[in-house]
């Protein structure tokens, strides 16, 4: 089996932005009041280039201030979660690894809530920073626990479950102890994974995080391939195992943390998307990473549209939608994994 020809790669590079733009346009068009695609295009042109098209200002406001920023953040969220999933699955050599299942998201939530309520600094950046610290602490604790719990692919997943429970409990403790009723309701809703209230400020944080993550991961694509037969084998292929692990896990934690600080912890995307992408294009990370990122982006925009439209007049937290898709997929992977072994 030869690697995909250069033309296929070129095709992807050209098609990916088009697919992304189409997804964003649909994300902006579909909703409680549906807006025509040409109105969406004109609104964006008005805002970007002062094009001066005659568009209902209310429609333009909805498209620009509300839906487009939200769709962009959803895209970034899909990209980062999918990339984190690919990286964790490759480095831990575990088909079930994902930032949510491993408790990284829970740790990030705790970090973010600690900053938001206990008030270590303020503002979006410190919220993300708190989430980043929480994510790293959680991952450190969970790998330590997994190492103590013994070998086998199950150990780190069980450690992740224990870690998630612990950090969720700490989060609840902080919230119940220190937040007022309104704060508490807001935070609980946010913890479920929620894109409501996302604005352009959030997009300016999410886009660089997603792009940086994508670049760092792509740069390490061959290193990730080298982990196919484990860390020892990667080392014998010339990979600085410790450095690659440190860089990529930090990047995965950073991406997860930024997204958690904006939209809360959204489950299963990091698990499901990489597996779907592998079915499409195989296991080579040079191809798998960009395809996972694109699939994740599109999936999240669609999930967001579904979450806004499935119950008329109400918005379901997007984490609920992803879990409804993701949990059965988790079960499928579990069953198939048994056959492989």
């Amino acid at each position, binding site marked *: *089996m030869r*690697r995909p020809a250069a033309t296929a790669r070129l095709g992807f590079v050209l098609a990916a932005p088009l697919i992304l733009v189409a997804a964003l346009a649909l994300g902006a068009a579909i909703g409680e009041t549906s807006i025509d695609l040409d109105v969406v295009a004109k609104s964006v042109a008005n805002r970007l280039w002062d094009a001066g098209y005659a568009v209902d200002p209310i429609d333009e406001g909805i498209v620009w201030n509300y839906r487009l920023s939200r769709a962009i953040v959803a895209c970034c969220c899909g990209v980062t979660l999918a990339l984190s999933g690919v990286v964790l699955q490759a480095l831990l050599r575990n088909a079930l690894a994902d930032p949510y299942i491993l408790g990284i998201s829970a740790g990030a939530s705790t970090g973010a809530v600690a900053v938001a309520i206990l008030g270590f600094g303020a503002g979006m950046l410190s919220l993300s920073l708190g989430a980043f610290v929480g994510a790293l602490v959680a991952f450190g604790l969970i790998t330590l626990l997994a190492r103590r719990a013994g070998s086998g692919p199950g150990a780190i997943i069980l450690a992740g479950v224990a870690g998630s429970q612990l950090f969720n409990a700490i989060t609840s403790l902080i919230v119940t102890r220190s937040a007022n009723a309104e704060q508490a309701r807001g935070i609980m809703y946010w913890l479920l994974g929620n894109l409501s209230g996302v604005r352009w400020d959030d997009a300016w944080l999410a886009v660089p995080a997603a792009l940086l993550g994508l670049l760092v991961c792509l740069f390490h*694509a061959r290193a990730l391939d080298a982990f196919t*037969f484990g860390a*020892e*084998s990667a080392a014998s292929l*010339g990979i600085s195992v410790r450095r690659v692990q440190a860089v990529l896990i930090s990047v995965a934690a950073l991406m997860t943390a930024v997204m958690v600080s904006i939209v809360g912890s959204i489950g299963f995307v990091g698990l499901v998307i990489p597996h779907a992408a592998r079915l499409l294009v195989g*296991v*080579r990370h040079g191809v798998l990473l960009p395809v996972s990122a694109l699939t994740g982006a599109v999936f999240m925009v669609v999930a967001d549209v579904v979450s806004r439209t499935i119950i008329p007049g109400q918005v379901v937290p997007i984490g609920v939608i992803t879990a409804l898709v993701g949990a059965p997929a988790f079960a499928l992977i579990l069953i198939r994994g048994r056959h*492989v072994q």
Partner: protein
Amino acid sequence: MTIQARGVVWRAGGRPIIDEIALDVVEHEFLGIVGPNGSGKTSLMALMSGLRAPHAGTVALAGRSLRHFTRREIARRIAFVEQQAETAERITARQAVELGRTPHLSALSPWQAKDDDIVDTALAEVGMASFAGRRWHTLSGGERQRLHIARALAQQPEILFLDEPTNHLDIHHQLGLLDLVRSRRLTVVAALHDLNHAAMFCDRIAVLDQGRLVALGAPRDVLTETMLADVFRVDAAVEADGNGNCLVRYARPGTVKEKCLQ
């Protein structure tokens, strides 16, 4: 290219696993490392190939300490085939071999037609060319092992480390694989279980016992009845054939003792 180990020590849990070993690997030789289970064969191979850093002593590659090489520089010169490296990824046989090109590529130096040729050659050399498109999990243990060797060959190393390379193979493939490795102009260091295979293919044999190097030399000098009794705790007769090779013939445990008692 030569490797010199000087006073190499490696400990685990406070206990020396490798204890003050000095060993020179000569260019283009086939060096066998033998010893009972837990004698430190795998550890010594990991230390000499730079996968682990010794707690004391040095390992030098062509006169320069391995500490001064990057992992990548080492991997362009030394390939290592582990005992049992497995994966649950749905990779193809060819993709497993392609991994061998990793130390020669980077994010900025892409895969080229030359790399395809090297992979093709490596697959053909281990007789797996027709399996190239097969998925890893559909292959037998022996086929997987041959692909690991092919991956190491695709690395185009000057020195090849093999940790019990013939574990999963039937006798035809065991001999074929050792012969293949032997026929390349490579320096080979192989941990071997089968002493007769070691005698057949190795230029020299190093015998490890409890982390120490207890014998080193040509097979017929090293594989003696006394050594087999002391290190491997077996009774055996060593016969020499006309070509200067030797053959170990094991006695059933207990039979010699009973004879003595009679």
